[in-house]
């Protein structure tokens, strides 16, 4: 395995959403993307807890943007996935694919 970082299901989804927005990801769009595409209701509270955990693990990093109207003149915290995070996601996917090998038929049949 390429990485020592273990990622939970929600954590993987959050990473996926962050990657999708390519450097423009922050709380609100990530939340919406999870709701639309992953068909899963995530509360903002759970999302922030996950983001904090991911940052502690070193798989994402954040930077503050300029203040903006439309959100009370407050700055956005843009999120991006670190190389370590990309590595972790890849290895998570590889693990899953290995586990699934030969099982598709059993499940779908």
């Amino acid at each position: 395995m390429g990485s020592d970082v273990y990622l939970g299901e929600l954590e993987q989804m959050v990473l996926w959403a962050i990657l999708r927005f390519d450097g423009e990801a922050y709380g609100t769009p990530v939340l919406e993307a999870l709701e639309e595409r992953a068909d899963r209701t995530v509360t903002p509270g759970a999302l922030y807890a996950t983001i904090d955990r991911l940052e502690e693990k070193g798989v994402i990093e954040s930077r503050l943007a300029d203040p903006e109207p439309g959100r009370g003149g407050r700055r956005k915290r843009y999120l991006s996935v670190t190389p370590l995070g990309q590595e972790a996601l890849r290895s998570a996917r590889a693990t899953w694919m290995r586990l699934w090998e030969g099982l598709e038929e059993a499940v779908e049949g």
Partner: protein
Amino acid sequence: MRERRPPRVAEAILAACLPGGGYRESVLGDLEEGYRRRAAEAGGGRWRAAAWYWTNALRIGAGYAVRRLLRRRYRPLERAPRPGATTRRIGLGQTRADVRFALRSYRRSPGFLTVALVTLALGIGANTTIFSVVRTVYFEPLPFHEPGRLVRIGLRGLDRPGTMSVHTAGDFREWRERTSSFEAMAAWGYRTVTVERGDAAERVTAVLSVGSLFDVLGRPATTGRAFSGAEEGPGGENLAVLSHAYWRRAFGSEDAVGSILRIDGTPHRVIGVMPAEFAYPRAADLWMTAPFDAETLSARNDYFLRTVARLGEGVSVERAREEMGGIAASTRERFPETYAGIGIAVEPMGEWLRAGTGSLWWILMAGVVLVLLIGCVNLANLLLSRGTNRRSEYAVRRALGAGEGRLVRQALTESLVLALGGGALGVLVGWLLLEALLRWMPGGVPRAASVGIDPGILAFTLGMSLLAGLLFGALPALKARRDAIGSRLRRRGGSERASPALIAAEIAMAVILLSAAGLTVRSFTALSSREPGIETRHLAAARISIPNDRPSGERHAFYRRLEGRLARLPGVRSVGLVSSLPVVDFTPGAWVNEPGVTHEGGDRPSAKYQVVSPGYFETAGVELLRGRLLTRDDGVEGSPSVLVSRAAARELFPGEDPVGKRFDLGLDANVAPLSTVVGVVDDVKLDGLDEMAPAAVYAVQELIPWWEGFQVMLRLEPGAPVPRGIREAIRGLDPSVPFLGVRRMDDLLAGSLSGRRNTMFLFGLLGLVALVLSAVGVFGVLAYLVGRRTREIGIRMAIGADPVSVRARVLRQGMIPVAIGLGTGLAATAALGRFLESLIFGVRPLDAPTLLGVTALLLAVAAVAIYLPARRASRVDPVRVLAAE
């Protein structure tokens, strides 16, 4: 704009919980974005958005607060006391440990935690809501410049202190010219006017201003400006200033300043909009310059003005009263006929604005405090029984060296942590309740625009929470101390004595609250079932308004033709015209002058008068008791005749036959000329269902030709809908006459009771909460007490006691504190009853059915609460109980 901002309180709570810096900012920003998106959605978006914001703010906030607490726990080294740290720091450290301990112990009993938090959140929330209203209504200064110097001035009977009634323009002019106590003085009068703007027409409450009402009150407009005294009076331009509420209703967010409104057919230029909290007088939709000529302004026969004045610098109300007393004496001398027994009243303005709501909100405040107290009693009981179960824990800690004080402190900390948690939820509940109150009872909350939850209210909530925590924590803390002292008192501990006392207190408070609820419900039903004196079923009222620039002959012809047309509409049985709708509208009054009869002192007879068409009586269902009804020939040009009501007959001509009596109406016969009474009709409660039917005089339009506007009453076929063709009928006669809509009389009457309904609803709700809380409390405590006696009961049964007699014994013992509580509660209700008098109608504060009902209800609840655990206890298997020893 206010709509677009997330709830301030929730935002503040969240901000306080989040770690600082960019982190806090980004989360708050995200949530605000989410809030705005949801608020912009159609259909209650704002309401749902606020709920969404609150939920998530509390969730995120709680998450971070807990994580911070735990993090501290895991990093003890960071927090090690520095060298030279004081004992106080150690004390704080101990508190933190106590708090953590309390949190852990509550996490282990989620059921208890839920019950406790729900009880506290409801109790504290209700207190927060009502207090935020109470503070505004009774404590916040009026929204005017130096409100302490404002007074109201009016006429009053010399033998009736504390009253104040309207006065004439002549009075006002004399006061203004001859007094020196006041810096400024203005008079105003209500007038219901028709406002046309484009195609829409609306009836609104206008205030006619004579002499600088805005100058006296000293409050600038929000947009535009208010008019000054110099702009009023004849010859000037017609100007109007809108109230905030009316502006929003009529214009939305559109700019109103500069637009032209046709008010009763005359164009008025809107020059300003007043702030939302400026509501003087309360019902004002707009203020307009009065179109009075010099003659009107010195007349002494038209009673419709009220005066407001600003006391001069350093002038006391007493001095102003003295000066006005002198003026009143001289007026009495000059006009003995009119002013006999009449004086002048001067009252501070603040008292009057509050008097409108009386003590309702104070009583509600007392009610919610009682609810919270009942909740505290429940919690004290719950904690006491928890404490009993934790007796061994205390013993161990004591053995390990914990001091008495330490254990008491621990117990108190646990209560306070609980109370603060309940208080935090209480803020949310209070905010929701307040929004609900303002939304569903528009007009029910005085000065609503100034009511809200702000730091002051939050401080109150915090104080309430701490107080509640101390209250319900005191007994358990004392018990912890006793348990810590040792085992000698253990066998006959105090909790068994304390709990019955708590039950008694709880029942007593429930009696008070339920009685208040019962009384308001009974007075509402008494009012609703009161006969207004007209037959309101299948009766509808249409409001129209003829511009008053029409000559009187033209107006009368219009009304007569309209009556005929409407009578031919399908589903309409008959049609009648009336100058003011009974019960709903204000009905004017006048002096009743019998030729050759003079009255000494202030008891000059007066009566309300209604101008009607002959068809009115049949249409409205007013019954003829004697004589005959009116015809169009009873006017000035025929033989002037009037009808009197039963009350008028009794008051004006006691013991005599009223038919054939003659009198004129008003001063110097300016309302109606000398007329003959030709009949007596039944009483109608013209002034509202909660008032006595006043003495009333009825005259046809032809007798009082100067009366301008009429309401149309339609008697419908039973089951017929309100007819559709009214608007077309009016258009067909004169397209320029605005039609203001038609309503069923039943609905209008129900609307006139909405204030009473609100009061009943609020008290009913409080009573219900009190009932549920006290039932739960009594049940919990008794179940616990009986449960503790299971062993004793087991022994009794083992040596041959009969289960029925065991149950009876338990029931009897349990009922003692309930009976004491009932007795105390009834006595307290009797003592407090007079405070309720202003809120109830048709029942006395000591209403036997209410008190009996409350007593029976609580007895039944308590009996069930005792019987169930008693039955369970009497069914225990003696062997098993004894074996468990």
